[in-house]
């Protein structure tokens, strides 16, 4: 057999049938549900008199519009409450395993899946959410789908797909101190652009990627979608297997050993073909952040805001100027030193225990700057508990951060955590689109350490100066 990529192998393992025009019926191992993109799909099943084909391969959790404040009180927003109650009715009616709001296991679906051992190497995983790409860090083919496809998976446990193209992004070398997975991914997106991966599945490879822990790999794969890719992947290795071992829903004992034997066969073969290859040197990557309203507008923290006058294409020049106007920035200004109003540490990109430790390292013994609101939103109830066991909550509370309950929160402003017009936010989330964190809000995407540095200095700051 010709050498195959990791993507090719997972694909081949899941093709039920390829139709004459080249579309494949692809089997799905894990279907993850949340309250926002599932109600219309359940309703479709009900109207057609269909059942969920495999509830035991499905998992549901509430995350997008849950409040991150006191949860013993009823949810105030009636529409949010209705969506959550609708999911609770649906999981009961269709028999779906569900982590309720008051369970310690509740959290952001892309944090919960790997944490529970529900997302495993070699699987196909889908969810009605574009950041499903996160689970690719496990060495699984994981991608976001629309609600019609959610209904299709519910009814058939399959999806109709054409194979993606293979792309490899290689980062060789050693990351400089103070440079995190988030900086690596921002640098990659800045390099290839928001459509650089369109039609492709990106495999992240090279010594700098292999050297990352699972949280870092999840941060990278999470933002594959911001590079336009259908999915991101990292080959499963001992780091992956050590992470998976003993997770609640992972295989145990002999089953685990047999699974590992299989998982070891998944890595890309020598000589496999990639349609597109990109390489970066780890040493060239600095702590980075975005200046505009597209995730590709990336700068090192030591950089200056670009000048639209230098852009030869007129439509792009107009768009750049509009971004500067929206963001309240001037061409040529140093990005460091720009004052912030809000700091958000959380989201499926950066809300795991490793992320909170990195932020705490900067926050320890310091105070949140006057006039800045700084929030920490752990990715799950379990992350929150572990952070509390390690005393991180006390570091944050002493510094003046808010210590909140798990959920998507200010990443997309579906719950009460929103920016007001004109507010500038240093955010560890994944999208800086106009209005993403609230109408008129201004988002700078950056790492947990950089976000914490912004909180304690009151402005965008090179976190390396503080550790």
């Amino acid at each position, binding site marked *: 057999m010709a050498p195959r990529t990791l993507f090719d192998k997972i694909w081949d393992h899941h093709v*039920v*049938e390829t139709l004459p025009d080249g579309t494949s*019926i692809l*089997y799905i191992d894990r279907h993850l549900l949340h309250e926002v*993109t599932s*109600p*219309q799909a359940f309703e479709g099943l009900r109207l057609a008199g269909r059942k969920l084909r495999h509830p*035991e*391969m*499905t998992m549901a959790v509430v995350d*997008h519009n849950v409040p991150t404040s006191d949860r013993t009180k009823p949810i105030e*927003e009636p*529409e949010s409450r*209705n*969506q959550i109650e609708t999911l609770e009715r649906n999981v009961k009616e269709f028999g779906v*395993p*569900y982590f309720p709001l008051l369970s310690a296991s509740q959290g952001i679906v892309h944090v919960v899946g790997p944490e529970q051992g529900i997302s495993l190497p070699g699987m196909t995983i889908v969810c*009605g*959410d*574009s950041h499903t790409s996160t689970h690719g860090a496990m060495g699984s083919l994981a991608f*976001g*789908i*629309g*609600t*019609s*496809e959610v*209904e*299709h998976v519910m*009814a*058939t*446990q*399959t999806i*109709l797909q*054409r194979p993606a193209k293979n792309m490899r992004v290689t980062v060789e070398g050693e990351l400089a101190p103070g440079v995190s997975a988030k900086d690596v991914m921002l640098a990659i997106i800045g390099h290839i652009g*928001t*459509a650089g991966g*369109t*039609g492709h599945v990106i495999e992240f490879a090279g010594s700098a990627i292999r050297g990352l822990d699972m949280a870092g790999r999840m941060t990278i794969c999470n933002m594959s*979608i911001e590079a336009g890719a*259908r999915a991101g992947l990292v080959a499963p290795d001992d780091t992956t297997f050590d992470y998976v071992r003993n997770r609640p*829903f992972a*295989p145990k004992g002999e*089953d685990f050993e*047999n*699974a590992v034997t*299989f998982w070891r066969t998944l890595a890309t073969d020598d000589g496999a073909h990639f349609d597109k290859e990109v390489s970066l040197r780890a040493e060239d990557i600095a702590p980075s952040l975005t200046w505009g309203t*597209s995730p590709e507008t990336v700068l090192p923290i030591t950089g200056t805001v670009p000048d639209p006058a230098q852009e030869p294409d007129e*439509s*792009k020049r107009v*768009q750049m100027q509009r971004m500067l106007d929206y963001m309240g920035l001037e061409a040529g200004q140093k990005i460091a030193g720009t004052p912030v109003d809000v700091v958000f540490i959380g989201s499926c990109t950066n809300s795991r225990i490793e992320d909170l430790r990195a932020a705490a390292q900067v926050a320890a013994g310091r105070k949140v700057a006057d006039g800045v609101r700084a929030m920490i939103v752990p990715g799950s109830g379990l992350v929150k508990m572990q952070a509390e066991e390690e005393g991180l909550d006390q570091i944050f509370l002493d510094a003046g951060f808010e210590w909140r309950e798990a959920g998507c929160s200010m990443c*997309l*402003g*579906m719950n009460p955590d929103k920016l007001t*017009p004109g507010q500038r936010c240093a955010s560890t989330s994944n999208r800086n*689109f*106009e*209005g*993403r964190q609230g*109408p*008129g809000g201004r988002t700078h995407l950056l790492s947990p350490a950089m976000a914490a540095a912004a909180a304690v200095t009151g402005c965008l700051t090179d976190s390396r100066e503080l550790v």
Partner: protein
Amino acid sequence: MEKFTTLSAVAAALPEDNIDTDKIIPARFLKTTQRTGLGKYAFDSMRYRPDGSENPDFILNKAPWRNAEILVTYDNLGCGSSREHAPWALLDFGIRCVIAPSFADIFFNNCFKNGILPIKLPREVCDQLMSDSTMGSNARLTIDLPRQVVIRPDGEEVPFEIDPFRKHMLLEGLDDIGQTLQHETEIKTFEHKVAGERPWMPTITLD
């Protein structure tokens, strides 16, 4: 799903790259449990001023584009969130066809599932169609799906590519689930095979 065969309609130009699905419909409007009624939120931040009144400068607030059924944009249309609320909002507004040099994958898929035809055409052709669209109601574009052509107001025909399976589904207004369930035997066979090959594969059961 409504069939798509031919469409002769006003086109509106949004000459921007990277029109993301947050821009098509912001997250705060995703709290519905229905597919319908989202048209009033389409392009909310561009269509309305902060006080809630209509922005008279926005193309979809002007005659005749208020009745546009075709949108022409630049690259990477529909990037970002996978929310199917984006095509639902477009459809509810009245859009049946979107034309761009390139699309984000998930949005592209979601359009087909809702009877919206996404057409990829080179940027310079999109420029021509945008220029046509400024002629207003005198400048109807015609989309002929069976023949796979866009017909410009001057009668010039621009051919486009479409996957044959998706074309068939649109022309017949078919939904995928019924089609896939015709392959029940193959799905069962596959499930049996996997159970043999990977017996360690766990299931999710909660007490």
